[in-house]
């Protein structure tokens, strides 16, 4: 009973139905714990004062924005190679979540940077690369909406996602080169490695876990609705012939 067996949409519906409530519960717990702990029970940073509390939403959102696109890339590859509908629809369901995560990362990043940089938008390379990632998400979703035939839509968006990933990485370095970072990042670097004093670190882990589970829940629900819509259209199409 290989993993691919769950690529069958109907089986996937049953499995995801059982798993969904638990993941939702887990995500809720982690989010609440992470945010409450981070918001109320951590001291202010000696230099940045209370704005450090923003890391509990900015870092997880930024992480999810990047990993959402990576997940869509993997799902697109699976669709192109093994032609499993669930992975194509999962990629489609993940896109809006990734888009909102990027938006959150952008806004919280700008708010966080304001006191340090003195302006709302300071073309910091990291924030700019999220702005570009945001455009990639917009393009990806726009292509999904523009094509009627579901199968060729899945193929085309998968190819766009793969090509887009290459250019996203290129843009990431081009932006870094373009502006070596107006201001050095705060004591915390926005990328994955977190050099943070540990009393900030544990709540951060929780809120990251919370965001990851939230992402999973939303993608599972999204994929299920995509499958149902596809199933309905197939039934209708088959009936009226």
């Amino acid at each position: 009973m290989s993993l691919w067996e769950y690529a069958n949409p109907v089986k996937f519906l049953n499995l995801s139905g059982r798993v969904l409530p638990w993941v939702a519960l887990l995500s809720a717990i982690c989010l609440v714990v992470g945010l409450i702990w981070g918001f109320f029970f951590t001291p202010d940073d000696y230099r940045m004062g209370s704005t450090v509390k923003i890391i509990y939403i900015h870092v997880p959102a930024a992480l999810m924005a990047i990993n959402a696109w990576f997940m869509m890339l993997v799902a697109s590859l699976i669709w192109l190679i093994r032609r499993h509908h669930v992975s194509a629809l999962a990629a489609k369901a993940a896109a809006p979540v990734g888009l909102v995560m990027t938006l959150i990362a952008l806004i919280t990043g700008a708010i966080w940077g304001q006191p340090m940089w003195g302006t709302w938008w300071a073309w910091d390379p990291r924030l700019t690369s999220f702005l570009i990632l945001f455009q990639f998400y917009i393009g990806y979703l726009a292509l999904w909406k523009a094509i009627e035939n579901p199968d060729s839509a899945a193929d085309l968006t998968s190819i766009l996602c793969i090509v887009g990933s290459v250019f996203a990485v290129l843009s990431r370095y081009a932006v870094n080169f373009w502006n070596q970072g107006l201001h050095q990042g705060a004591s915390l670097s926005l990328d994955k490695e977190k050099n943070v004093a540990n009393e900030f670190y544990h709540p951060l882990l929780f809120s990251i876990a919370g965001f990851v589970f939230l992402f999973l829940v939303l993608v599972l629900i999204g994929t299920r609705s995509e499958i149902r819509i596809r199933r309905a259209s197939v039934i209708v199409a088959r009936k009226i012939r």
Partner: protein
Amino acid sequence: MFMVLSVQDLCIARSGQVLMTDVNFELAAGQALIFKGPNGLGKTTFLRVISGLQPALSGKIHAKEDSFAYTAHADGVKPSLTVAENLQFWADIFDNQNIDTALSAFGLNDLKSRFAGLLSAGQKRRLCLARMLISNRPVWVLDEPSVSLDTASVTQLEEVIKQHLQNGGAALIVTHGHLDLGPSCKTVNLGEYKSNRAVYGDGAEAFL
């Protein structure tokens, strides 16, 4: 009789809709098949699948590589190029240099230097059919070739196809009009292959 083309239990779908199932036939050199069938059956999709433009749902098509020359409803003629330039372009693509035989076969010699945009529908159709000769490929796939052709041009077309059959070519023709191509031509009614069951493997099947 050397088989130019053989098709085994072919299933054809168009955007998730199964149209025809278990289509089987063979085509020998020098033979022509005329396909009849009601509108909307998917005759055009059928020809596109045979000529390799579109993948079939299932089933096999045995034919030599690059042996199809396909003519669709759309003429594929560039209005801003002259007749000769249009044909010369395709001659370069199929690297066969003499476009004169094709021009004379369809009586386009005197229109050689005229812009294709100024041609009548019938003349454009003849220019499109002239491409068949240039491609010098054994199996001709013609989708409504005689549309917008006057009687003189239809006989001209019949002449060309018979000539093609004589020197070992073959042809698959979908037409509502009547084309008499002599003894070696059979008529097939595609209606009987109309699909009545879902076929496993088509994209939508997985959702049921």
